[in-house]
Structures are given as C-alpha cells and as structure tokens.
C-alpha cells in the first residue's frame, strides 16, 4: 500500500492474525487434541475393553444388527474398529417410505453387534468436529473455519516475508524482556515449526476444498458426484430394483478386500440391502498409506461379485489424497503422532504469543489502555487461558455426570461451553494480570484433577493402567498431568511482577 513490501506484509500480518487469532487458537488446540481422537473416545468410555475382533467379524456383527433394526434402509454406513478404537459405529439412511423412528449414530459392540453398554459420549469426535465446524450449523461453521484457515495461510506467507532474519531468529529467545520476549517466543514457535504450520494450514483447506472451491468441478462435470466417481472409482448410485434378494455375508467380502490390499478395511457402505441391486463398498483404512483417500472395492450385494474397483489415482488426485493424509495423520505411528501433537501445540503457542504480542506492543507505560487494547486483552484471556479450562470441563464432566443419564453426551458438550463462557465473563471482574494467572491456575488444577477423578470413578486409574500396560489410559492420564504442569508454570509466570518497560525503538516499529 504505502510502504515497502515488508512493511505492508507486517501490517497485513497483524490484521490477519488479530481477526482470526482467537478462532485459530481454538482450532489449533482442538485439532491438536484430535490427533488422539480414538484414544480420547476410549478414555471417555472406560467401560469398554479394546475391540479384539477382526474387521470381518465386526462387519458381520454390525450387519446382523442392522438387519434386525433397519432391513429396509436405503443405505448403511459401517465404520469398523481398528487397533485404536473399541467400537463399531453405524449410521442408517432410512427409507423415506418407512415409518419414522429415531436414528442417529449408533455405537455397536464389535463382538456381538449389540448397542454398546457404555456411557453415552461424543468422545474425541467432539473436538474433531469443533475443529472445523466451530459448533455452528452447517455450512456456516465450515465456512468460518475456512476463512480462518485462509487468514492463517495469509499470515504465514506475510509473516515469512516480514521476517528477514529467519535463520538468526531460530536461535534467539530472550526470556523476561517483556515485549522482546513475546516477539522472540512468537518467532521461535513460528519458525521452528514453519513447515508444519504451512503444511497443516494448506492441507486443512484442501480437506474441504470441494466445498470451498467447487468451480473446477463444475467446469468439468455436469454433476459434482461424477467427479467423485471418476476420481475415486465410486460406482454410480444405483436405484433399488424393488425385487428382494438376500444380502450375501459381508465378512468374506471384507476379508477378500483386505487380502487384495494387504491392509485393513475401515468402512463399509451397504446400499439397498436385501435388494437385487444391493452394493457393498469396502474402503481401505486411511492409515495404510500417506494417501488417505484409500482404495475401495464394490461388490454386488446379492452375489458377492466385484463390480467396481477404485482406479490407481493420477498425480493430482494422489496429491489431494496425500494432503488429506498429512492433515489427518492416520498413517502416523505413536512416535510420529506424539511429534505431530507437540507441533500442533507449537501452532497454538504461535497464535497465542502473536495475540499477546499485539497487546504488549501497544501498551504505554503510565497511560490508560485504550478500548481496543482492553478488548483484545480480555479476549486473549478468555480464549488462551479459558479454552483449556473448558476442555478440561468436558473431560471432567464425562466422569462426574452419571454414566446412565439420558442425554449426557450433550451435557458434556454443554459443560465445556458453559465453563468456557462463564470463565470469559468472570475474568472481567479481575485485573488482567490476576485474570491470566488465575485462569491458567484453574486450568492447571482441572487437568491435574483428571487422573484423580479417573482413579476414583473408574477401575482404570493410573496405578492400575500402568501396571496393566494399558497405554491408552496411562498415556491419557500422564498427558493430563503434563498439561497441568505446563499450565501451572504459565500461571506462575503470568502472576509475576510487571514486565520491563517497552523500548521506544521497538514500539515505533511494531506500530508500523
């Protein structure tokens, strides 16, 4: 606009970060937690042991259940358990002519096919959904999340252009120097994991690109579904013939598909079950390759013959699949998964320190803070210190709400948002520095309480899970303690004496 390239980029970097920063912080935190989506779900259903059956058995038992409750459905979606999940999830697409009855996601015991005898919970799905839907109705949440991701992408590019001493700053972190330290912390968290931030942001946009940018498809295909069929080899949705034919046993179909891939199956879609035109599509587990758009094979449901196979993807379709895979990281083993978790945490740290830097850079010693400064500061406290407490409330409510209570899954979600919202309001009554320290301290206490509450309310407390080498539960409890420690340190630091006065030289430039 009026300055050099770097000045303009610094200006837009500040605005992009400020406008999207709070939502981006929440997206980073919940997205990072979602690396452990199945593990969180398992921790939140402590009644359930690990699945311990093959995918073929799980498919067979799920179909047996669906034949009992929804034999006339249009379509069944069956999500099979894997090494990290304990349940089979099924969705029914009901026949419009059938009498309506309540249907939603159903969680089945993979062994018996009966609905699971475990507490009702959203589990890790809650953070995962919030990460890109922001608890807003479809499609607005996804659009808002996309806008934030776009701002993030713009902030990364403009930040890199602004940042000419990228290599030197890699080694620069000056503690306890007020604004200088926040800038260093922002730079270190951003530069250290820059490839990660860039990749996770771009691939995140690509996960929903078909929704955000449908025009390339519209220019090439009369119907959007034609693109999916061409790219991923999905068979055209056949109409029901109206003539009945029993569905062949699905277990052997799953087993055959898995033998062909040398990798486990993850999903089964049965269309028009018990019709002569029935199809059974088996999809490969996303963890089998970095390309998360796994192969699929479709069988005729009445005969069990193969009627379609996904083609080997070309470079562009494979690139999109790899981008999706890099984002959801299903391929990652435990070591890589924890590394990605820590990198995701640096993303939250980068956004958080950037937001803090905005206020620190504008504070004038001795001068009353202007309205915008107070607003940003309060929103910073509400989000950076408040959201972790809300997430802890979600976990704690899972253990404290009676396991048999109807509608408890929604109550858990409400616990998170009421706690978060309440905290955002209550902190207004405290001076900012106290509010920071107390918010972090509350979060630290809440996370530290988790292993204790788990010990008191379940039979899978830390001593026993450690003794039994139950790494899902032991790892969860230990992670809670580590987060509690981190928040405790943050509380102690935030409560310390005021920062050093800002140097005049840097003030001028931060305003530029």
């Amino acid at each position, binding site marked *: 606009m009026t300055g050099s390239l770097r000045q303009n*980029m610094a200006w*837009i970097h500040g605005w992009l970060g400020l406008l999207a920063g709070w939502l981006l912080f929440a997206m980073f935190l919940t997205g990072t937690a979602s690396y452990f989506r199945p593990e969180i779900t398992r921790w939140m259903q402590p009644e359930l042991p690990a699945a311990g059956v093959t995918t073929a058995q799980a498919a067979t038992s799920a179909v047996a259940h669906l034949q009992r409750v929804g034999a006339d459905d249009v379509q069944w979606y069956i999500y099979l358990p894997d090494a990290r999940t304990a349940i089979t999830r099924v969705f029914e697409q009901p026949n419009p002519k059938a009498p309506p009855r309540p249907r939603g996601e159903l969680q089945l015991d993979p062994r018996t096919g009966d609905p699971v005898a475990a507490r009702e919970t959203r589990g890790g799905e809650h953070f995962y959904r919030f990460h890109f839907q922001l608890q807003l109705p479809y499609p607005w949440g996804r659009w808002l999340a996309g806008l934030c991701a776009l701002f993030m992408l713009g902030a990364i*590019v403009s930040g890199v252009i602004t940042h000419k001493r990228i290599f030197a700053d890699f080694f620069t972190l000056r503690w306890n120097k007020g604004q200088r330290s926040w800038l260093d912390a922002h730079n270190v968290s951003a530069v250290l994991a820059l490839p990660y931030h860039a990749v996770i942001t771009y691939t995140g946009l690509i996960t929903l690109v078909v929704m955000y940018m449908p025009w390339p498809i519209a220019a*090439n295909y009369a119907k959007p579904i034609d693109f999916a069929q061409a790219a991923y080899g999905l068979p055209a949705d056949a109409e029901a013939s109206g003539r009945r034919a029993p569905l062949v046993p699905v277990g052997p179909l799953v087993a055959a598909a898995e033998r062909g891939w040398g990798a486990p199956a993850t999903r089964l879609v049965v269309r028009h079950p018990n019709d002569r035109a029935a199809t059974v599509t088996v999809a490969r587990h996303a963890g089998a390759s970095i390309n998360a758009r796994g192969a699929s094979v479709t069988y005729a449901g009445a005969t069990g013959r193969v009627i379609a196979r996904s083609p080997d993807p070309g470079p562009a379709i494979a690139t999109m699949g790899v981008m999706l895979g890099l984002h959801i990281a299903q391929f990652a083993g435990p070591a890589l998964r924890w590394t990605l978790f820590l990198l995701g945490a640096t993303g939250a740290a980068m956004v958080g320190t950037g937001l803090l830097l905005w206020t620190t*850079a504008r504070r004038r010693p001795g001068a009353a803070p202007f309205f915008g400064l107070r607003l940003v500061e309060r929103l910073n406290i509400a989000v950076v210190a408040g959201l972790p407490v809300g997430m802890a409330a979600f976990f704690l409510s899972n253990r404290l709400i009676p396991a048999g209570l109807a509608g408890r899954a929604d109550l858990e979600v409400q616990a998170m948002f009421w706690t978060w919202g309440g905290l955002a309001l209550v902190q207004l009554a405290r001076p900012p520095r106290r509010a920071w320290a107390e918010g972090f301290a509350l979060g630290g206490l809440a996370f530290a309480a988790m292993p204790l509450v788990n010990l008191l309310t379940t039979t899978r407390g830390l001593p026993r899970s450690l003794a039994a080498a139950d790494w899902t539960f032991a790892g969860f409890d230990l992670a809670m303690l580590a987060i509690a420690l981190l928040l405790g340190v943050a509380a102690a630091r935030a409560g310390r004496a005021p920062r050093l006065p800002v140097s005049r*030289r840097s003030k*001028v430039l931060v305003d530029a």
Partner: protein
Amino acid sequence: MFIDRQQPQPAPRTARPPWRGTVMAVRCVTALVGGYAFAAVVVTLIARLLPGDRAEATGWGLTLSFLFYAAIGLWCFHERRLVRVAATVWGVAVAGGGLLWLLGVRA
C-alpha cells in the same frame, strides 16, 4: 506488527483524507471477495483447459486454488494504487468468468 531491528523509522504521519475508510473497505472487499473470484476463475480455467484426464485437471485446479487466493489477497494489500488492484482482480474475475461461461461445461 513485526519489529524492524535494523532501521527504526517513525510511523508516517501523512494527512488522512476523509474517504480513507472507504478506500480501505474497497481494498478489503477486493482482496476477500474479488480475490476469491480471481482464484476461482484462474483455477477453474486451469481445470477446464488443461488437456488430458478430466479428473486430473480438476484435481490440479482444486489443489492450487488457495495458493492463488492467498497470493492475490496479499498482493491487494501490497500494491499502492487501488485502481490497479481493483482493475486486475475484478478484471480477471469478470473476463475469466465470461470466458468460462463461453466455454461451458467440458463435453
């Protein structure tokens, strides 16, 4: 936002014309809405005109979309002359959109 450690410069104190807010609003809308239209048109042209497999061409268009969007959006805030920004962004969007309309869906 960022701190320039080498050359501290005072913030420019130019006179602010009364229409400054409107000018900035036009620039922002051009970056956000116009930038989207620009990127959509460019990647859709790529997808429509790239020879070879149709699904592949579509895939390249989709994959590159946000690269174009981010780049044009940032450029909108770099280029000093707003007229040039608006003409480029909206010009490409309208001309490319018209071309796509003439081309129609790939047969």
